[in-house]
């Protein structure tokens, strides 16, 4: 039998049993829909995160205390280690050590209770310099950011996030009011706009102040939690990062790179790291969705076995009229592959449509800068896998059909 007629026969067979065919493919449709949805949303999330990381500027380099391995698990493990000292700041600022360095911003972090009159709120403390406004592209809705002089003079000033403002001040104007953070009074100099809840860097809960102020009045420490460095325009970021590593190793008197008590991260490192996390998460969800696909495959096999029994007479007749075992095998196999292939196509369309609708919801409903991504890889994979499922789960029933003896089959009532 020619392929053309095998395909024609398979289509006729499926049309003759239309409602059963539709029921059969539902499992595959659900599985492929889930995979498409997960892969599309995973890719969208990854794009969103990467665009935010890249939005920080590719010239930004971060130094964190402790040796952060390349795996994402120990990402924040050494956040509060004390290895970054003021001496490091001096060493790095020296043009002889790091010629490509344009600016350096020490960062200290903490969590403190803040009060204003009878209102209180637990804030995330972010001690930095005036550079923070340009690095994170922050523009206050009201007031002015603190200045380099405020950092030098350890001014007790604070820039508060939108949630801090609403929790402490309600509808009152916070500008120039005094808030109390862990028993110390700070003057509010600026309020930040709401970041919308979907941003990677959420300043809504934060109180930003000069790092010197935070170290002296609140944290009582001399070290830094981070050093944020801006490479000079045109400087090679990798070279600058290497210079920083060399300088810090010297300053800390460490020669063995595996014993470094700090890690230098470029934006590329961060992007890669976050990329690994979202990719791992996406594949984990794809694996979950694959279970649905597997169950769908079992369903196909089950229904195909019933179909083979139901069509025993037809098989006998075809054999009596000259069909070979291979003709019968091919007929049922093609039916199975067609079923799952069609299921796969429906799943691809359904999954990407749902992902598109969800993308619209995320960008308009939540105001995120969410881009719909059509997962080409997922589509090709999904279609291939569903056809393969037809082949795998259809082969046993098709084999059963092909081995039926024509007389047994013709006698079957």
């Amino acid at each position: 039998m020619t392929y053309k007629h095998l395909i024609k026969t398979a289509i006729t067979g499926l049309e003759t049993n239309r409602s059963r065919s539709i029921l059969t493919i539902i499992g595959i449709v659900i599985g492929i829909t889930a995979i498409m949805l997960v892969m599309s949303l995973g890719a969208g999330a990854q794009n969103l995160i990467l665009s935010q990381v890249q939005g920080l500027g590719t010239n930004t380099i971060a130094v964190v205390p402790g040796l952060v391995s390349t795996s994402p698990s120990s990402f924040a493990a050494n956040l509060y280690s004390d290895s970054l000292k003021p001496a490091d700041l001096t060493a790095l600022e020296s043009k002889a050590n790091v010629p490509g360095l344009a600016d350096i911003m020490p960062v200290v972090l903490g969590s403190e209770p803040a009060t204003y009159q009878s209102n209180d709120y637990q804030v995330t403390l972010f001690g930095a310099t005036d550079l923070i406004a340009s690095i994170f592209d922050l523009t206050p809705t009201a007031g002015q950011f603190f200045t380099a002089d405020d950092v030098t003079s350890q001014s007790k000033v604070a820039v508060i996030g939108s949630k801090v403002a609403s929790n402490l001040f309600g509808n009152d104007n916070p500008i120039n009011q005094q808030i109390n953070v862990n028993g110390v009074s700070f003057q509010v100099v600026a309020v930040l706009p709401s970041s919308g809840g979907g941003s990677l860097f959420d300043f809504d809960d934060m109180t930003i102040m000069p790092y010197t102020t935070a170290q002296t009045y609140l944290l009582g420490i001399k070290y830094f939690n981070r050093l944020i460095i801006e490479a000079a325009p045109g400087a090679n970021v990798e070279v600058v990062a290497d210079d920083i590593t060399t300088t810090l190793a010297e300053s800390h008197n460490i020669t063995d790179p595996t014993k470094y008590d700090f890690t230098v991260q470029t934006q590329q490192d961060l992007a890669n790291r976050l990329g690994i996390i979202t990719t791992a998460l996406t594949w984990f969800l794809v694996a979950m969705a694959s279970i649905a696909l597997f169950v769908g495959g079992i369903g196909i096999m089950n229904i195909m076995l019933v179909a083979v029994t139901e069509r025993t007479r037809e098989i006998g007749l075809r054999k009596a009229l000259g069909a070979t075992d291979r003709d019968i095998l091919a007929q049922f196999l093609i039916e199975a592959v067609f079923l799952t292939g069609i299921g796969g196509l429906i799943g691809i369309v359904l999954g990407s449509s749902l992902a598109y609708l969800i993308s619209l919801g995320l960008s308009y409903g939540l105001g995120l800068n969410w881009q719909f991504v059509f997962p080409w890889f997922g589509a090709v994979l999904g279609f291939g896998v569903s056809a393969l499922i037809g082949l795998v789960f259809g082969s046993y029933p098709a084999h059963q059909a092909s081995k039926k003896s024509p007389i047994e089959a013709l006698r079957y009532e």
Partner: protein
Amino acid sequence: MAHLAFLMNIIEVQNLKKSYADGETETIALADVSFTVRKGEFLAIMGPSGSGKSTLLHVLGLLDEPSSGSYLFDGKNTYSYTGDELARLRNEKIGFVFQSFNLLARTSVLENVKLPLAYSSIPESEWDERAAKAIESVGLAHRMDHQPDELSGGERQRVAIARALVTNPDVIFADEPTGNLDSKSGKNVMSIIQELNEKQGRTIILITHETSTAEHSERIIRLIDGVIESDEKVVNRLKATDEYIK
């Protein structure tokens, strides 16, 4: 040599035996059967149910293999054929007509008749013409696009005959072809079968348990308990066309 063709045997069976192992016990369907069928002969095989006539038809029709003995089809021992070769022989040389028609449901008369062609090496360009001719020869040209459930029993059996004819086979095996039909339709079907034998020279092997049907043939083999009880020529052959006109 064409004039000698009718002298050749299309079927030669020698000491044919067929038994089924049914658990511990062995059921013998055919004990020891030997006979020959000439090309162009019209043979009826008769016998009560359980006599082995269906088993014999299945073996002769290459749907089943004998347990022992030899079967020469068209001069060649069928023992040596592979499954694919048997399928090709069934397709090219043999036509089947079954008691229960066995037409594909929800498939037009034309498509049903074309079914054997799909498994043949006949080029597709000839299919429609061949099928149409076969359908015409059984008088159903006006029913070409109908589906089996829109036809009467007699018409369905005529479609089955057209399907058996479409590959132009040498032998037609008819297994109780009138068994599910009323007497008028039955006679009509028998007249067509008789015509295939007389006008087209096809070998017909008819299985029946009714003497009146068997007497349309030239020769009757009676089977009882898997053994040939008698093998004789029909003296007063019935002519289906005559009865049909009445």
